[in-house]
């Protein structure tokens, strides 16, 4: 039985917070077992993913390719462990499949593959692919006059790729109010802070200048996340940008804000200590 199934109307911030905690626990466990993955980005995106899959997205795990489903594209595909866990919790495939992550011949590769994993919309992991694909999806819905929406999650360092800004221009040009970009603004990329490597600020102003409606929120406040997602479109005729202020490695004291945890694999001791700090999800 899937203990995460059927939110039963209880889509409260508290419930989402528990779900997010379980996403964190399971992601770390997967990275530890497979000895490959990105704990920092998994943990910073956990609340966003919980709010999307357990509150905002109109998806049916029984009909993962239903034409009228909302689309979610995980552009920061290196955080596939958090995505796989969320999809399993939402019922797209059995939770037990997660143990197979990165093992020989597993469908759960080091990046999401839409041809192999139910619920995945795009094969991502090279950074800067998700937003252009999301623009295309949103444009398709608009051309059809269809009601489904498109959401896409990028990293913040990822925004240094130029393709994002070509897509940002196109989205505004086409008036894609059915498109929502969420930026996981944890201020750290691989090895160092974004502002040290190539500055992104003023980020909100950039998106506004590109014609987007922008909201800046706490990316770990599940109530704010689900309320914000429920409020799209923010302004008629404009694509929506949610800059989610996050902490890379959120939830585990010795991972938070540590650049080296971008793709550090936890030792046995580190995993145990992290799971201890993350106690109190729904699964116990």
């Amino acid at each position, binding site marked *: 039985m899937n203990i995460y199934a059927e939110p039963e109307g209880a889509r409260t911030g508290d419930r989402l917070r528990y779900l997010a905690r379980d996403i964190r626990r399971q992601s770390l466990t997967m990275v530890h077992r497979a000895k490959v993955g990105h704990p920092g980005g998994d943990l910073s995106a956990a609340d966003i993913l919980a709010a999307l899959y357990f509150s905002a997205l109109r998806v049916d795990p029984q009909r993962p390719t239903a034409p009228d489903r909302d689309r979610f594209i995980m552009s920061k595909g290196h955080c596939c462990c958090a995505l796989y866990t969320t999809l399993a919790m939402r019922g797209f495939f059995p939770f037990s499949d997660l143990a197979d992550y990165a093992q020989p011949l597993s469908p759960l590769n080091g990046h999401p593959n839409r041809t192999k994993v139910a619920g995945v919309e795009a094969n991502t992991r090279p950074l800067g692919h998700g937003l252009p694909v999301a623009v295309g999806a949103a444009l398709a819905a608009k051309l059809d006059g269809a009601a489904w929406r498109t959401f896409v999650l990028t990293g913040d360092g990822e925004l240094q*790729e*130029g393709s994002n800004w070509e897509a940002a221009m196109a989205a505004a040009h086409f008036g894609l109010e059915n498109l929502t970009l969420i930026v996981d603004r944890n201020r750290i990329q691989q090895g160092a802070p974004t502002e040290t490597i190539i500055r992104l600020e003023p980020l909100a102003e950039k998106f506004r200048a590109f014609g987007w409606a922008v909201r800046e929120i706490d990316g770990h406040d599940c109530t704010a996340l689900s309320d914000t997602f429920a409020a799209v479109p923010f302004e008629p005729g404009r694509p929506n940008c949610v800059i989610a202020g996050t902490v890379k490695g959120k939830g585990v004291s010795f991972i938070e804000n540590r650049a080296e945890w971008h793709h550090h694999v936890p030792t046995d001791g580190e995993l145990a200590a992290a799971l201890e700090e993350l106690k109190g999800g729904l699964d116990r």
Partner: protein
Amino acid sequence: MGSSGLSRFAKRFPTRLVNVGIAEQNMVGIGAGLANGGKIPFVCGAACFLTARALEQIKVDAAYSQANVKLCGMSSGLGYGPLGPTHHSIEDMAWLRAIANLTIIVPADALETAQAVRAAAAMEGPVFLRLSRTPVPDVHPPEYVFQTGSATILRPGRDVTLIANGAMVWRALAAARLLAAEGLSARVLNLSTLHPLDLKAIRDAAETTGAIVTVEEHSTRGGLGGGGLGGAVAEATATTCPVPMRILGIPGTFAPTGSTEWLLEYFGLTPEGIRDAALEVVGVKVRP
């Protein structure tokens, strides 16, 4: 920068490391501009992104413009293992070999890598260095001298030639030892410069041994019967001295999930796999 392992360089030469962030296209363009300004930029990035993302910049800004840019494709081939096909760089040689004016070097061990880097810096014009993250044993003697455009016979032989480059060279040498146990003498040719091609060495291999097996950590598709190395050798022999060949590599598929070692075995890029291909090709050869 992280993917390129440049932190020690950054420590030693802090002002000579330019980190452009996650922006490969911009990186190659900036490299071409630095070269225009008289610098000798080494532009480093994961081979998959450097080549796939910035291919037009490599073609136009570096090769076509004859910019003095040295491109370093790190962690090439299947080096990223379980990170999957997005991170595997197994098409790069086919793409780059089709671009004019671009010297391509695929060194086989640490000694050759160090020399190839110096050679690239010393020569004028664009160079692509295809580098590996897979540990390899030394295949060259300490007195080895790398020369751009020259293939090296690492082991003499009469019955078949195993042509390889990069991380496949030691495997070809190991295969030659296995073949010796079967009574076959296999020449091993390290074709570390993929462009310009050492036509003389390839033709001599064809004429003298009459059969060729190519081994590359790359797709076997993309050129004439082969992607990078196999295609290059097939082109060279087909027009001069055609002999039966076996082209080993990744056979035109996206790899399944698995570690680098596991994938190499899965695709038969092992000493045993190379030996079996050599036995097969020797069986059909017509020349002595």
